[in-house]
C-alpha cells in the first residue's frame, strides 16, 4: 500500500520538539523530509536525554531519535551566504519548508517567505514560533516552561486548594512544543491542499502560545462569560475525580454521571456511609469531598489496580489506572494493537518506541529509517541531489558550511 504523503517533499530546520514533530507526523506518513542541522552541533534535542546508560551522546538522545524518524539529515550553516544558497536550492524543489528558527535569528540570517517564495512560488513555508511572527512578544526569549505558562494551561495544574503554597505545575516533557508541532502540521496540510488546488504556496505563521490557548477546555470562557478566574486552587465542582492509591499503585477514580456513582457504590458492596445525604448527588459529593475522600481512600487502599479497573469497567464506570511506563510497555491491549515499534539505530542500538498515533485503513504509517546521525546524508543530498563534486563538498566541510 502507498503511503498517504509519499509524493510530498519537505525541508525542515527544526530544534527540540515543535517543527521536528510537525515534520515527523508527515515523514511517518511517507513524506520525504530533509532535516537541516547546525554543522558540528546539531539539533538541541541531541543534548537532551534519555540516553542509553545515562551518558550524554549526540547520536543517542531518545528525544531526538523519537522526533526524527524517517528523516534525511544534513548539516548546513544557513547564516553563511554559501549555506543560504544551498538552502535555496533545496527549497526550490520542495513543497514545504517547516522551521522553528526564532524570529530574531530569522531576521539575522534573512530567512523570510518573500525571498524563498521568489525561488519557488509553490512553497508552503510554515514558521512555528513561541508567540508568532507579529506582535510585541515576537522576539521574546522562550523555553518550554515559559510558553506552556503563557498559553494559560500551567495555571490550572497544581495540588489544589489544600496546598495553595505550592506553585502551578508544569506538565511533563515538551508539551508546548508538541502542541505547536501538531497544530502546525494541521495548518501545513491545509496550505498544501490549497497549493494542490491553486498551484500556489503561502506563508503559515503558527503561534505555540495560541495553540495552547485554543485548548483550555471550559476554563478560558469563565472570564468572558462569568468574570471568574479559573486556576489550580479551584475546588472541583463534582467528585470523585481523583487519583487514589491502591495496594500496588494508583488508580484514577472517575464518576461523572449519577449511574456511574451508583454502580461504584454497588461495586464497593453498598457501604452504609454512601447513603448519607452529604453524598446524595455529584454536586453534593464535590461540596463534601473532604468527608467522602476519607471513606474512599480507606476502601481503595485495600484494592489492587488492575482488579479494580476491570471490575469498574465491567460496570461501565470509566476508571483508569495511573499508568507507569512499565504498565504501558506491558499492556496486553497496546500489544494486541501493536502500538510500540522496535527501531534499530546504528549508534544507539535497538529500542522500543511509541508507534502510530492513528491507524489508517488504506495508507499505512511506517518507519522506513531511523533518525539520522549528524550530517549522515550530506553526500547524498549535496552531492547526489544538488550535484556538488567531491572537492566542493570537502571545501564546504572544511570551512564549516556543511
Amino acid at each position, binding site marked *: 500500500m502507498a503511503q498517504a504523503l509519499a509524493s510530498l517533499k519537505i525541508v525542515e530546520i527544526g530544534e527540540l520538539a515543535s517543527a521536528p514533530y510537525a515534520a515527523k507526523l508527515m515523514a511517518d506518513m511517507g513524506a520525504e523530509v530533509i532535516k537541516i542541522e547546525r554543522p558540528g552541533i546539531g539539533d538541541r534535542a541531541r543534548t537532551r536525554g534519555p540516553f542509553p546508560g545515562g551518558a550524554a551522546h549526540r547520536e543517542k538522545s531518545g528525544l531526538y531519535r523519537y522526533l526524527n524518524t524517517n528523516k534525511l539529515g544534513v548539516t548546513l550553516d544557513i547564516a553563511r551566504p554559501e549555506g543560504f544558497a544551498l538552502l535555496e536550492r533545496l527549497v526550490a524543489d520542495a513543497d514545504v519548508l517547516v522551521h522553528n528558527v526564532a524570529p530574531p535569528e530569522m531576521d539575522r540570517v534573512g530567512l523570510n517567505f518573500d525571498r524563498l517564495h521568489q525561488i519557488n512560488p509553490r512553497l508552503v513555508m510554515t514558521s512555528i514560533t513561541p508567540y508568532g511572527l*507579529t506582535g510585541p512578544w515576537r522576539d521574546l526569549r522562550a523555553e518550554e516552561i515559559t510558553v506552556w505558562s503563557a498559553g494559560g494551561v500551567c495555571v490550572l495544574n497544581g495540588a489544589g486548594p489544600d496546598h495553595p503554597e505550592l506553585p502551578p505545575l508544569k506538565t511533563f516533557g515538551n508539551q508546548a512544543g508538541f502542541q505547536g508541532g501538531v497544530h502546525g502540521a494541521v495548518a501545513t496540510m491545509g496550505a498544501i491542499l490549497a497549493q494542490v488546488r491553486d498551484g500556489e504556496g503561502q506563508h503559515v505563521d503558527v503561534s505555540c502560545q495560541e495553540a495552547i490557548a485554543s485548548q483550555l477546555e471550559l476554563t478560558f470562557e469563565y472570564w468572558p462569560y462569568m468574570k471568574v478566574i479559573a486556576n489550580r486552587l479551584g475546588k472541583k465542582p463534582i467528585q470523585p475525580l481523583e*487519583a487514589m492509591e491502591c495496594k500496588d499503585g494508583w488508580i484514577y477514580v472517575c464518576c461523572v454521571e449519577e449511574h456511574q456513582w451508583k454502580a461504584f457504590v454497588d461495586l464497593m458492596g453498598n457501604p452504609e456511609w454512601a447513603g448519607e445525604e452529604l453524598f446524595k448527588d455529584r454536586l453534593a459529593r464535590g461540596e463534601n469531598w473532604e468527608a467522602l475522600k476519607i471513606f474512599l481512600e480507606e476502601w481503595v487502599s485495600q484494592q489492587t489496580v488492575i482488579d479494580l479497573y476491570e471490575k469498574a469497567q465491567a460496570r461501565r464506570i*470509566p476508571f483508569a489506572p495511573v499508568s507507569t511506563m512499565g504498565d504501558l510497555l506491558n499492556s496486553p491491549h497496546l500489544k494486541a494493537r501493536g502500538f510500540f515499534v522496535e527501531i534499530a539505530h546504528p549508534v544507539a542500538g535497538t529500542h522500543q518506541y511509541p508507534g502510530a498515533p492513528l491507524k489508517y485503513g488504506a495508507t499505512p504509517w511506517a518507519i522506513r529509517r531511523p533518525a539520522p546521525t549528524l550530517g549522515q546524508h550530506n553526500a547524498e543530498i549535496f552531492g547526489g541531489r544538488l550535484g556538488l563534486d567531491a572537492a566542493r563538498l570537502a571545501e564546504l566541510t572544511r570551512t564549516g558550511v556543511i
Partner: protein
Amino acid sequence: MARPPLDGIRVADFTWVWAGPYCTLQLAHLGADVIRIETKTRPCVTRMLPPWPGMKPGGLNRSGYFNQYSQGKRSITLNFKDPAAHEVARKLIARSDVVINNFAHGVMDRMGFGYDDVRKIKSDVIMISLTGYGDTGPDADYIAYGPAQVPLSGLSALTGYRGWPPMHAGFSYADPNGGVHGAFAILAALYHRGKTGQGQYIDMSQWECAMGLLAEGLLEYTMNGREPERIGNEDPWMAPHGIYRCLDRPEQVMGLTVDQFVAIAAADDAEFKRLAGAIGRLDLAGDPHYATLAARKAHESELDAILAGWTGGRTAVEAAAILQAASVAAAVVADNKFLSEEDPQLKAREYFVYKEHPEVGTLQHCGIPWKMSRTATAVRAAAPCIGQHTDEVLGQVLGYGAEEIAKLRAQGALD
C-alpha cells in the same frame, strides 16, 4: 484573499463532548462546511455545562464551553428513533467528504453508520472514529472519560512535585490532543484522495495519540529500565528552571485574593549570567556555586530561594519584563483573565474572535492559532444554536422541500 483551504469540503459531524468537536473545529478553521448532527433528545453535554453569561443557566445555547468549540459550524437536529432521520443522515453522508464521530466503539455500527454502511453511500468517503482505546484490542469496549485519559496515558505518573503522588495535567489533555491529531489524519487522507480518488477509514485511539507526547519517559524505560522520577518544575538540563511566586493581583476577584507567578528558565551559562545581572546579583555568575550548570543543579534549591526573594516583591508582569529586557526566558503564568484582558500579544495578533450570537450576544472566544498569507483565515460565525441550520441544510444541501421538512418535523424526526 483566496478561498480558505477546505472551501467546498463538507464534514458530517457526529461528534460530541470535546475530542470530536476539537477535531472538527480545526476543519472549520480551514474553511470546511462542518455540519453537526445533534438531537434535542440527548443534547451534547457541553451545551449543559457552565460557564453561562451572567452565571445563569438556561437553555441549550448559552454555554461558553459549547460555544467555544463549535464556532464556525452548522447544527442540525435528527432524532434517530425515527427511521426518517436515518434517511436524512444518509443523504447528508452522500453529500459529504468526511464522516467523523467520537462515540464509544461500536455505536456507529449499531446506528447503521459503520464504515461498511457509509462507504456504500459514498464510495470515496473518509471516515474517522475517535475513541478512547481504539477499535481493536481486548479493551476496545472500555469507556473513556476525558479526565481519566491523562492518567491512563502515562502523563500523570511523570508529572508531579518532587516526592509527591502522581498529578494531573490540569485539563482533559488527551481530548484536544486526540482531536487535533485526528484533524491531521483527515487532511492527510484528503491529500491521498486527491491523488488517487481513494477514501479510507481511520481508527484513532486517544490513548495512543497521547503516548507520543511522553516519548522521553517511555524511552527512559525502554533504554534503561527505569521509571522516571517526578521533578516538579525542574528540568534536567537547565537551572534555574521554575515557577516563582510574585505579588498577588492587586484587585480581588469575586471577593478572593488571586496569586500570581512568573516562569523562568536559563538555558545555559550565558543566559544565567544575564539573569544574574537583571536581578542585581551579577556576583552569582562568578560564584563557583552557580557558575556552571552542574553547580547550579547541585545548589538548585538555594538558587530558587534567591530568585523567589527577587520575584516575591514584584508583580508577575514586572518580573517578566525585567528579565525579558535582559533576554532571559520568562513569562507571566497566565490565567484566563490575563489572557482575556491583559496579554498584549494575543490582542495585537487579533487572536480573539467576537461574533454575534443570538442568545449570548457578542462575547470573546479563542480563535485560530495560525495565520495564512494567501488564503483566508477567519472564524465565519459564532457557534450554532441547537438545530439552527436544520431547515437550511435540509433545504439547500439535501434538496428537501418546505412541506417535506414540515412533515418530518411534525412526526418528530427533527427533534
